[in-house]
């Protein structure tokens, strides 16, 4: 039986303290964090604390994505705030290594984490928000089956103006 944590190009693994320098670089790289909710610079200590929060659990299933070939960490992601009654969870993902933002790595990570959500965690729904100016990510989410569920008008203030947040959802059985 194939590991549910392995896709075609990447695998998901737990956070490790040894990921510190990498995470510190990614989380302070504007090119990377412009697409996520992150707003302020982060210290090594904050990142160390985050990494030491430990292994994936139901309420905070955080992973590092690394390439199958060469075991190179390329990004981080997580399924947050799971409600066991609603079987619904929020998803966040970021690819820190710029050269892996194209080439199908994001799609492979998304498919893998969604399969984990449905097949391992027995969830019914995964949801995410994405900035309306991140069409590359939106395309990836659409490709794996996420549906457009609406627009949170002026949901985020960033870089001097208001932005809309696109809300997307994927139900059990919809993963492509």
């Amino acid at each position, binding site marked *: 039986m194939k590991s549910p944590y392995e896709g075609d190009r990447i695998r998901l693994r737990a956070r490790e303290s040894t990921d510190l320098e990498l995470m510190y670089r990614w989380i302070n790289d504007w090119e990377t964090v412009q697409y996520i909710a992150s*707003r302020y610079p982060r210290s090594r200590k904050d990142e160390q604390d985050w990494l030491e929060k430990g292994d994936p659990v139901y309420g905070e299933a955080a992973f590092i994505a690394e390439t199958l070939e060469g075991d190179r960490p390329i990004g981080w992601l997580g399924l947050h705030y799971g409600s066991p*009654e*609603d*079987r*619904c969870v929020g998803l966040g993902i970021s690819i820190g290594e710029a050269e892996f933002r194209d080439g199908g790595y994001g799609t492979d990570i998304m498919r893998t984490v969604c399969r984990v959500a449905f097949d391992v965690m027995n969830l*019914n*729904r995964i*949801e995410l928000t994405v900035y309306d100016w991140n069409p590359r990510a939106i395309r990836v989410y659409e490709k794996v089956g996420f*549906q457009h*569920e*609406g*627009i*949170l*008008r*002026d*949901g*985020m*203030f960033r870089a001097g103006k*208001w932005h809309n947040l696109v*809300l997307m*959802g994927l*139900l059990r059985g919809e993963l492509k």
Partner: protein
Amino acid sequence: MSYNPWQGQLIRLRVREPEDEPLLHRWFNDVEVTQHLSVRYPVSHRSERAFIERMSSPSFATSEFAVETLADGRLIGGAGLFDTNPENRSAMLGIAIGDKNYWNGGYGTDTMRALCRFGFDMMNLHRIQLDVYDGNDRARHVYEKIGFRVDAVRRQAVYKFGRYVDVYVMGLLEGELIGG
């Protein structure tokens, strides 16, 4: 020109007090009141008292109020703004009119208007957001009447009473409040 920001046409918003506990406890254990809310489990007197205590000093982080009638100072429900974000100037809104005698006389609408106006005029919010479950048409109608728009539909986002329910995410921006 100033006006009383804690007051609508029919109701006033005030802080929850320990004396409110018996009524709040009864309402939040009444499934008719909570069926369209996120409440799922019974609530103890102890946790209701603790909630009132936690909410005793409204602030930007959380401003939870008791709703009482202007006419006779009767406690009829609760409403509040929570999950605020100062950079986005956004908040979530929750409301429950617990006293069923006040379900159809404009008290919910008046409470919503007063609370949203408070959010915009006193807290300087830009966006107020709420969740309404599919099937709660009366509430949705009230929200639409005062200017909220359905921004998104979270399909099957909540499970209650043996089935998955769609959740409408409604938003109201600064300047959109009708009849405030």
